[in-house]
């Protein structure tokens, strides 16, 4: 069927060799390698995807990777396109898209740097955003157990009020 979503996906596929799928009306998902991210995003913005709706990170410890997703909206075509890319979990480094979406991307990347520890190469300010004075590991990683962390670092088992947070059977 010749829908606008299929047309756009064909155009992307003919310009760059990428995997892509039309999920439903107004939703396109493409998967790319992280090295080509900036180049493809630049092209997508010139094609009308001017609004960066969100950037997100999904942690997959079994596959040893972070999946970074960029959700782009086109005001002209009324289509949401998601760009997915995978990076190494032990050395999470990816090029920043600040040159393309400016302050909008900057603040999303700053948040994700704090919560997942992803380093965005080229972002001018990756200082702490929500978690001032936080010294622990990035808290949104799947292997971060907040109960364990609080028991070890914050609570005191001798404190009458905080005793309740410890499992007494152990």
């Amino acid at each position, binding site marked *: 069927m010749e829908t606008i979503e299929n047309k756009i996906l064909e155009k992307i596929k003919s310009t760059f060799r990428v995997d892509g799928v039309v999920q439903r009306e107004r939703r396109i998902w493409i998967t790319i390698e992280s090295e080509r991210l900036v180049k493809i995003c630049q092209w997508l913005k010139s094609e009308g995807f*001017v609004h960066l*709706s969100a950037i*997100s990170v999904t942690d997959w410890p079994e596959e040893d990777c972070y999946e970074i997703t960029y959700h782009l909206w086109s005001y002209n075509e009324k289509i*949401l396109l*998601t760009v997915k890319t995978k990076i190494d979990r032990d050395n999470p480094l990816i090029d920043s898209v600040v040159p393309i979406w400016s302050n909008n991307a900057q*603040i*999303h990347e700053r948040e994700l740097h704090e919560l997942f520890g992803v380093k965005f190469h080229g972002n001018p300010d990756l200082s702490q955003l929500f978690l001032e004075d936080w010294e622990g590991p990035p808290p949104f990683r799947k292997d971060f157990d907040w109960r364990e962390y609080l028991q070890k670092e914050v609570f005191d088992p001798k404190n009458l009020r905080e005793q309740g947070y410890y499992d007494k059977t152990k």
Partner: protein
Amino acid sequence: MIKQNNTIENLFTSTPDIDGYDFYFGPTHPGSGNFGVKLKLHGERIESAKADPGYLHRGFEKLMEYRIPIQNSMLSDRLCVLEPLGWNLVHAEAVDELMGNDVPERAKYIRVIMAELSRIQSHIIWYGVFSIATGFDTGFKIAFGYRDYVLDLFEMITGGRVYPAGYICPGGVRRDLPEGTEEKILKVLDKINEMIDFEEKGNPVLEARTKGIGILKLEDAIRLGATGPVLRASGMRSDVRIEEPYEVYDRFDFDIPVRLEGDAYARYYLGIDEMIESIKIIKQALKQLPGGDYITPSLKKIKLAKKLPEGEVYVRNEVARGEAAIYMVSNGTEKPYRTKVRGPDFLHMIPVLEFLLKGAHIADIPAIYWSLNVCPADMDR
């Protein structure tokens, strides 16, 4: 260093020997609401502004990974204090799409009615806090008085005045509208019309303090990621309800108000126009309201959590503040593997606010800040 020649004439002619100073706006609750801005001032001009968020960070995205969708639907209330039902709807839609739930017609209409009532009461709060911030106390008191009529409706329908405890849940809504609701909603809408008449009369203090203040041009608005009323007040006809109709929004006849000025006054006035449109939608929805189930029958009595099918969805909605979205990933267990919440105020309160405050006058801070219809809860999450 104090200069020695501080004669009376010099005091009035020479400029003070200082390079500027730091100034903190917030984070006390009555002023800015769990959110602070660190400003660098020179005289009364703001040289640079840096947002200082994090006073309301509760880590919802992480909390949702530990809970099943029906529990998360209660958590989603707290995503934004001022319009819980709007966020209920985004979460419910994300789970519905992931599970492939077939939502009954009646539930869709009830969802739209509740979401629009929620938008109206949120815009009334907006008017209230905006008035008190610009020195018009009466507006604040009148607004909160009228908001209570909508809260009475919420109490009758959902059981909670402010937090509906996940009334809009995956599969539909939690319970049917009680008897006589339709007449009561129409009566409340009449009351809201009184409120709109009062707002439309205008107020010289409010106008003097907001016209031409905090101008956001369209290209800056797009660049900084503004959505919703902030973007529409800068001249862009963009609304998720029109661009990507969810639920039954494509069946109603309503307008998207747009203004071209892009200043604080335009943003504030847009709120009034949007309330009028919301009233139109609710009236049409009440007329078309069909009978039938209010929730998918298979989800009516949930004893055990169902497994979420593997997959990922990105759901966008229009809440009172702009584009709200949830990105949900599932790996086939009962709990969502990852939930990303995209709040409109994350961009309005950090990049847009920092941009607008730069170069502004110190006395205009409240007018600029509240004209963005801010809610720190959905920014910090």
